[in-house]
């Protein structure tokens, strides 16, 4: 038990040590200050801007920004859909794979362009190397960069600056953040044992004479951006539990930390760009606290194991179903909380086989969306909660609600509510429909209360743009592919549009000078109220489904 807790605590300590430096670096990148990487990156950026035909310095209005996001994402998604559907005739198809069904290809394209990477397929048996590298690996960069760009635009708007140029932030996110870290990280993974080859699967003859087929491929470069960009789509079906994606505890530590550094550091970036680092740190510690509590709940559940199995074994042993020996209960639980909190969605153990506390925590993370949160968008949601907390406390004490010297008015509250309400709509409505037709639609694999969790998890994962799953679910059907596509799109683009409109509106507001009567937002008390708002709003919306799923399952297990 103690050994496991030390592993978890040290991993978190590494994260805390990186965040201030990386947060400051991102603030420098997006404030146009020179950085050491600039000398190498600038010529590349110049080529990219020229090739794309973008006048990078020209700031965009809110509608121009939204139009640029939607149009670029549409083109990228369509491009990838085409590659997937024609993969049979494209190169690097060593195992002779044919095109997937149109609905699976559509779901895959939408899932990757929205930074979700929900997978209704197994990589090694469905997509060729060309599809994985040229289609999915490509979107891993651009979808992550889209999220970062939106977050930066949102932060700029909140602090009264022009929201900037989408294409400029998109390219800078790639050339100065995602690509340099990926290059170094991919080489580290490669040295540690992650393959990078175009060679076909290998046939091996085992000592007992069986014929083994060893899938491999260009994995290392894919794996690192998968974690860094919070994409989470595995090269292989079983994701980071696969020994070729995550062969040892060096790679596991690297992958765990790297999936959190961007969303955690963006909070600090905000503090610096808003000229109020203290507020950044207060929010950081609030999220960190929630994250640590949820990690503890999940880890304890796995440590005590499955009471039914422990009866058979005659001993208390951790739950190792769906877990790899090398990671054990502690690091699998920590990964499960981190990957659902950050909307990465990669897994190093099966969430379907987690004990009820683990199921509860992972679902709660998907519902709340801010325990670090999605690439960029998670940070933006945090500020939406801050805006709401300002509004609520303003109502309570009878002051005009102001945030960073700008009044919060009807338009802001309507947009903030839209962002929060689209999430339950995109989860609960399709879940209800699917559960109403269990025979024809749901394809649940586990009986009882857990089946309800399977369905809710799939839609929550889609709407939160996470991508992990209770993977026993038979989800490669026309219904699942199309209905989750709805949740994917609604959960991604409705909030992005609303965030940009919100930020654009704030930019154009008159700044109100701070007085004695101003409600200060950079205090421990206010941060505590914000945490309360987050938990209460989350609980009010999703408690029934948590009770019907993991809570009931926990009582059932005894």
């Amino acid at each position, binding site marked *: 038990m103690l050994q496991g807790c030390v592993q978890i605590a040290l991993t978190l300590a590494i994260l805390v040590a990186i965040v201030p430096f990386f947060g400051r670096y991102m603030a420098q990148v997006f404030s146009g200050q020179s950085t050491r990487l600039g000398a190498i990156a600038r010529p590349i950026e110049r080529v990219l801007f020229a090739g794309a035909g973008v006048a990078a310095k020209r700031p965009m209005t809110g509608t121009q920004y939204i139009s640029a996001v939607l149009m670029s994402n549409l083109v990228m998604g369509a491009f990838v859909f085409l590659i997937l559907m024609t993969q049979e005739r494209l190169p690097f198809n060593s195992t002779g794979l044919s095109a997937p069904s149109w609905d699976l290809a559509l779901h895959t394209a939408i899932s990757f362009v929205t930074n979700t990477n929900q997978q209704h397929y197994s990589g090694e048996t469905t997509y060729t190397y060309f599809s994985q590298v040229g289609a999915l690996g490509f979107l891993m960069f651009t979808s992550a960069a889209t999220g970062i760009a939106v977050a930066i635009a949102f932060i700029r708007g909140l602090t009264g600056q022009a929201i900037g140029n989408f294409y400029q932030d998109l390219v800078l996110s790639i050339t100065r953040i995602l690509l340099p870290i990926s290059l170094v990280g991919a*080489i580290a993974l490669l040295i540690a044992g992650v393959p990078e080859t175009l*060679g076909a699967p290998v046939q091996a003859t085992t000592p007992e004479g069986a014929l083994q087929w060893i899938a491999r491929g260009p994995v290392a470069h894919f794996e690192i951006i998968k974690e860094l960009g919070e994409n989470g789509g595995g090269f292989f079906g079983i994701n980071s539990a696969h020994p070729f994606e995550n062969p040892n505890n060096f790679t596991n530590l690297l992958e765990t930390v790297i999936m959190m550094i961007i969303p955690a550091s963006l909070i600090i970036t905000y503090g610096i760009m808003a000229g109020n680092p203290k507020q950044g740190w207060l929010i950081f510690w609030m999220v960190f606290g929630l994250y640590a509590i949820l990690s503890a709940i999940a880890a304890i559940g796995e440590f005590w*194991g499955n009471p039914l199995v422990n009866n058979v074994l005659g001993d208390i042993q951790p*739950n*190792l179903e769906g877990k790899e020996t090398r990671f054990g209960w502690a690091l699998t639980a920590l990964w499960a909380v981190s990957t659902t909190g950050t909307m990465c969605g990669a897994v190093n153990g099966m969430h379907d086989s987690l004990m009820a506390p683990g199921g509860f925590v992972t679902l709660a993370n998907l519902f709340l969306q801010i325990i670090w949160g999605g690439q960029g968008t998670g940070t933006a949601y945090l500020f939406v909660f801050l805006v709401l907390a300002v509004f609520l406390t303003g109502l309570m004490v009878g002051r005009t609600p102001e945030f960073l010297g700008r009044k919060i008015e009807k338009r802001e509250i309507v947009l903030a509510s839209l962002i929060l309400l689209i999430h339950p709509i995109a989860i609960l409505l399709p879940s209800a429909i699917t559960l109403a037709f269990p025979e024809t639609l749901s394809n649940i694999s586990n009986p009882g209360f857990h089946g309800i969790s399977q369905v809710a998890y799939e839609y929550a994962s889609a709407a939160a743009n996470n991508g992990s799953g209770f993977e026993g679910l038979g989800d490669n059907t026309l219904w699942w592919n199309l209905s989750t596509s709805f949740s994917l799109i609604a959960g991604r683009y409705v909030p992005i549009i609303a965030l940009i409109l919100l930020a654009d509106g704030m930019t154009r507001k008159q700044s109100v000078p701070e007085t004695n009567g101003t409600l200060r937002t950079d205090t421990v008390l206010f941060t505590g109220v914000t945490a309360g708002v987050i938990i209460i709003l989350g609980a009010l919306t999703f408690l029934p489904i948590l009770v019907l799923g993991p809570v009931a399952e926990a009582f059932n297990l005894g």
Partner: protein
Amino acid sequence: MIQDLIVGIRSTLVLWVLTAFIYPAVILIIGQVAFPYQANGSLITNSEGQVLGSALIGQTFTSDQYFWGRPSVINYSEGDDAAPTGLSGATNLAPDNPDLLERIGTEVERLKTAETQPVADLVYTSGSGLDPHISPAAAQAQIRRVAAARSLAPDQLQMLISKYTDGRFLGIFGEPGVNVLKLNLALDNQ
């Protein structure tokens, strides 16, 4: 609108060249030139150059002569089902699924028949279905059986087990695991 579309298409193309062509090509070249062993899957070959397996991927062992690995729902990607792509997969059984208990019951019976203490990782299936490791306790539990089948002294096996145990990273992170394939190949070479 048309302007937006053109910029969208052009930026897609230039970013595609950078992230889906140049970047993977650089990593591929570095891998194949500088680290060919890892880049090609850490393959283990015999003296005739035949591939016996990968140091990172587990295999099925059922004979008393060998240490057994963890149960795998995909049979460690062996046999006709796995051809030609290879497989990975887990049971995804929930803790309260009756199938889980039934399977574990069978597994415990099998181990007890072989006079092996049922350790958790020997009855629970792994995440990938390809787990190369078992816990040191699971290896200990099998020493007597293997020693009897091979007429070897348990002390010798003890030494081999420690030799093929991958420790925690920096002595802290993760759990120690015995690489079953490497251990069994070493037994054959005794």
